[in-house]
């Protein structure tokens, strides 16, 4: 830039200058040009991933339980502003050997092993798998940061599916997050998370009858009792009975005999099994469950329906009025690990 030495102006000269300016032509002394540049793309970065519980007292956690709501917090930086992002994806996936390895990342959702949560700019929250699954993205609780900023935390609220694989041994769940601005991506992960056992029994047959039983009768078989077991790991099928059964006319109470198949006066005994043969049947107790099967394994979301459960009845030979008796049979799924 060139500079001209300037002489100091006297007040008189200034006044003269001002006075002479009245006729100055201002038109065309100014012109414009449109300047432009293209800001280059800067790769986004995923600065951190955290798994948090939700609700009051929310805190960081390393263990999940299916059907419980959690919050994956993904801190992302994009110097082109977060609005530059097209998606942020969170992969929550099961790793059988428990050692994080990029090659282990699934490419698609799976009810047992992987869920992919996706935020799509500006405000769409999705999950894969998204049909016939109990995995859930709680979009109403999800939140994205201000997109005009360059750094912020995306919060993915979700519930693990019912059959998200339990991690009883060295196996683990990991969380992998990737931010994509359409041109480049940035990622990060959180490894070694645990998934608790989850079991559920549904669709148990409402009633089952032994018919008319003679006093002193033995091993009278019941009708079929169906039950569906859903579990994310090994499980046991268990059963128990109410301690008394009640006469529907006189209210006479019969007592469950739990020491074998020789009930006394006003007593009865039960065996139970997950098939139609009394062989292998277990003595039904009232104080606690007994397993009729301890070989259950992880099921699908639709579960494992056992439709051939049966009971066998032994009735005391006296002290039992001739009328209908009712009691309650309890079926249970239990962690089989």
């Amino acid at each position, binding site marked *: *830039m*060139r*500079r*001209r030495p300037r002489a100091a102006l006297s007040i008189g000269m200034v006044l003269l200058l001002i006075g*002479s*300016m009245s*006729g*100055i*032509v201002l*038109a*065309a*002394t*100014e*012109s*414009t*040009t*449109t*300047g*432009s*540049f*293209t*800001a*280059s*793309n*800067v790769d986004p970065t995923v600065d951190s991933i955290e798994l948090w519980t939700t609700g009051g007292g929310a805190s960081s956690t390393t263990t999940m339980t299916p059907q419980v709501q959690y919050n994956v917090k993904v801190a992302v930086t994009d*110097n*082109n*502003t977060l*609005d*530059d992002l097209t998606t942020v994806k969170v992969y929550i996936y099961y790793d059988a050997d428990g050692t994080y390895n990029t090659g282990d990342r699934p490419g698609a959702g799976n009810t047992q092993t992987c869920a992919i949560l996706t935020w799509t700019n500006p405000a769409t929250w999705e999950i894969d798998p998204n049909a016939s699954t109990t995995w859930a993205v709680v979009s109403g609780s999800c939140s994205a940061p201000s997109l*005009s*900023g*360059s750094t912020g935390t995306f919060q993915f609220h979700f519930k693990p599916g019912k059959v998200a694989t339990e991690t009883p041994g060295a196996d683990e769940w990991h969380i992998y997050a990737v931010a994509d*601005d359409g*041109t480049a991506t940035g990622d990060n992960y959180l490894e070694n998370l645990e998934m608790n056992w989850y079991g559920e029994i549904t669709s148990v047959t409402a009633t089952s009858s032994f018919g008319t039983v003679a006093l002193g009768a033995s091993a009278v078989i019941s009708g079929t009792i169906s039950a569906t077991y859903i579990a994310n790991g090994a499980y046991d099928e268990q059963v128990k009975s109410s301690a008394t059964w009640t006469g529907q006319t006189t209210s006479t109470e019969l007592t469950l005999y739990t020491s074998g198949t020789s009930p006394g006066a006003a007593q009865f005994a039960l065996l139970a099994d997950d098939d139609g043969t009394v062989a292998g049947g277990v003595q039904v107790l009232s104080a606690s469950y007994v397993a009729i099967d301890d070989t259950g394994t992880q099921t699908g979301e639709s579960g494992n329906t056992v439709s051939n459960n049966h009971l066998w009845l032994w009735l005391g030979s006296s002290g039992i009025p001739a009328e209908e008796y009712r009691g309650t049979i309890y079926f249970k799924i239990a962690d089989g690990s």
Partner: protein
Amino acid sequence: MKVNVILWFVNMAPSWGLLGGVGRAAWVVLAIIALLAAVGVIPSSPEPVLAITTDYTFASGGGTNKWAYEEDWTDWQEWAEGRPTSPDDFGTRLPATSGDYANLATSDNNRWQTQLTLLGWEWNSQLFLFNINEDRSAVTQIYVQWEGHGSNGWSYYTRLQIYNYTTGSWVTIRNEDDVDSDVTWTYTITSNCANYIEAGTGEVAILLMAECSALLWDVDCQTDYIRLQITAQYSPTVNSVSLWDTTPAEVTTMTPQVEYNVKVNITDNDTLNDLSTVKVTLYYDSDGNYSAGEVPTSGNTQTCAILTWTNGSGWSIDPSAGTTWVLVSGSCVAPTLTDTTGTFEFHFKPGKVATETTGSARWHIYAKATDSTARTGDNYRAGLNMNWYGEITGVSASVNFGTVALGSTDVISGTVSATYISNGAYDEQVKSSATWVGQTSGAVLTLNTSGSPGAGEIALKADDDSTLEGAAQVLSASYVTMDDTGTQTSESGDTVPNHLWLALGSSGIPAEEYQGTIYYRIADGS
């Protein structure tokens, strides 16, 4: 061109006493020879020539400004002494009477007779004096018409003369013998007319001399009618020169490209239609002191414009091509040309680079009127100012920095060409819009004016060359100067390859194209 053939007669005194009878024949021969030798060709005045012609006669009597006198002369006085030697040498100057003046008034054969002597070879004479009103320097033609007669008889001469005040001698108009009946003699003078008019008084003297015949028959001189016709051609005068704006108000300061009106008030007693041109020369004078010798003779976009009104052709300006000097001919006004005084109004716009006046420098206006006979008059208006003028044109429509990484500094732009036109010192200035806008997302980046852009900010430097050194930090609230050494340009201006340098914040800037406005300005550098 017309030519007039005029026969000039030699003033030959035809009187020599008793030898006159023999000598006259020889003189006649000599007169013929002289006549042939004296044939000349005189160019006429250029056409058209507007002039004022005034007749001086005795129609309104004598006295006041015209007089007639009579006298007689002996042969000796006339021949030997050459009397009268001048209008003042007219003896006792016997004045004509009112009756004589009445006889002289018209051509009606009522004559003023002078018969103061009857002696042969003596002379009766009449002297006619006219004090004309015209400026002797303006007179272009003197026409004399005389009707009357003198003496009869062969070799007795009647002579009509007009006095040349410059040479102090009489010039013969006609000299013939035997003029014993009425004749009409006319004579026209078209050159050196002032010589025949007495300075100060405007007197024109015409002398009639008639020699008496020795036969004593018809010895007198008689004038029926005499007319002196004076034709004057006046020089124009430029009475005033003034500069006006179109408000209208008289002004002393001009601004380029603004319309002004130079009013030139002119008088030409031959009527303004006698003018051939009126030229107005507006010119720059670096020392500001008007001097006639400094008036330019041709136009110059920076220092001079010559506005010309040409009778019959209209208005023109020099410089006239490739210039922003403008003659607003539609607004120019010429006065009524049949008047003798009027104001010519030259409407014009000073050119863009008409030199600014700083210090003692001034513009002057010189006006010159030229008539059909190349007579001129002039005047001037000195000490005018010219305001600063600046214009910026040809600024590149757009400039691009290309793709710039976030956090970059001093990324140079393409060239921003700008042409600066100014009539004086000027500064080249620049500023930016306060924000630049993303063309996809509408993201807004803010101009950082400290040079260290933060998140979502840019900063710019600018200079009039391609080197960062000396570049100015670009602001948005006001202009900053890139160069303050600009000097007066030509009409085509000074084209400069400006550049910008971009610094980009390291965050808060979406990846997309941004656009902002860069303002370039020319400012008075005085």
